[in-house]
């Protein structure tokens, strides 16, 4: 396990690209970054000219060694920090980062259990790190992803996830508008969907669920109701801030 570090480090925005109209991938070069495991998060601190500071936590899409940290940030309509990161921060600008943080919602390559990932919206970010870590691992049990999102235009990392189809298949589930010719109606994930589209109970998968609180509450209850052990369902929630 990579030890957490507790001091703030300066990070320079070295890469950025739009993921959707309201979300952006941001890569920071962070000298001294110790690397991180798949699923961990980082605190980002912004400082205004008068010294006022704001701190927010973001999951990392990046994983492994190296001094680059990739975040994927969705703009919250009433947010203070996310609109700045999504719409204003320019290449070469600096922020401060602290981490990596969190030692439980992580996927490690030696895990013997097969893995089911379930994402709601921008909750896919730490799960993308797990898919990337899985691709880089020699010794790996099967992994698959169920990605619930409103419309095809809301997808993060669609091309990259498509490239992993042979090793980590992604099932796309749309809650508002399915793609033209889609074979399933739009709607929230049901217990039936989870039974059809995720690894079965008898495979005893380790399940990672990340998304807004309501999504995680609903999905984790359904998983337990399908017969999965509560201890094999790991959750990460966000929302409200």
């Amino acid at each position, binding site marked *: 396990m990579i030890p957490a570090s507790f001091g703030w480090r300066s990070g320079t925005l070295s890469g950025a690209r739009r993921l959707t109209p309201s979300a952006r991938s941001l890569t920071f070069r962070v000298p001294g970054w110790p690397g991180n495991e798949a699923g961990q998060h980082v605190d980002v601190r912004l400082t205004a000219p008068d010294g006022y500071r704001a701190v927010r936590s973001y999951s990392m899409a990046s994983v492994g060694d190296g001094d680059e940290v990739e975040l994927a940030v969705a703009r919250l309509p009433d947010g203070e920090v996310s609109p700045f990161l999504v719409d204003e921060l320019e290449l070469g600008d600096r922020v401060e980062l602290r981490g990596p943080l969190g*030692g*439980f919602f992580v996927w490690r390559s030696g895990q013997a259990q097969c893995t089911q990932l379930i994402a709601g919206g921008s909750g896919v970010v730490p799960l993308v790190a797990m898919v990337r870590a899985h691709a880089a691992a020699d010794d790996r049990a099967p992994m698959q992803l169920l990605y619930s999102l409103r419309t095809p235009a809301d997808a993060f990392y669609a091309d990259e996830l498509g490239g992993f189809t042979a090793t980590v298949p992604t099932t796309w589930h749309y809650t508002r508008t399915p793609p033209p010719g889609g074979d399933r109606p739009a709607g929230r994930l049901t217990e039936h969907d989870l039974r059809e589209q995720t690894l079965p109970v008898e495979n005893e998968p380790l399940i990672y669920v990340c998304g807004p*609180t309501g999504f995680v509450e609903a999905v*984790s209850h359904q998983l337990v109701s399908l017969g999965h052990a*509560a201890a094999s*369902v790991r959750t990460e929630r966000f929302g409200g801030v």
Partner: protein
Amino acid sequence: MAVFGGRRRSDDPALPPGQHLTESFPVLSAGPTPVINTHDWEFFIHTEDRQTHRWNWTEFLELPAEDVSTDIHCVTSWSKLGTSWRGVSLDTLFAQVTTQLDYVMAHSFGGYTTNLPLTDILGGRAWIAYEYDGAPLDPEHGGPARLLVPHLYFWKSAKWVRGLVMQHDDKPGFWEENGYHLHGDPWREERYGAWREDPYG
């Protein structure tokens, strides 16, 4: 260069360093929300002489309760001011308990644990809360009952609490084993595992 303005600056003295205000009530949990029927609910305190004090739901509601208005601070940097709770003071529960030990491990339905010094939960600073904002506590916020230790970061206020086990040392619980600070005082920004060496000061 983009210049961060920051819209939510607050000189509110109730806000600890590095925290920002929220009106909502976010949830931090590591797994599914356990479904707990109050018929099966029980709270216990287990001491070093193998004594276990127990209260079932009916007995618990008969204990003297207090209304608590307090600020809460989550390690993920949100704070919510002036929240309203109702619950039983740990002083009331410990009035029936004899122990020489200085630390407790709080245990929750679902298997999660968090460690606390006894001094942090006595003296009118901690409760077992079962109402929030005048209504029964929602399961996702820890209902039917959670520990409420508002002067520490909110992960210490164990959701779905079912008992306390006295311990000799301040042995870390689930969250503390996974990177959070052993103590968790928001005014000292005890967020992450500072019991380890901090290489960056």
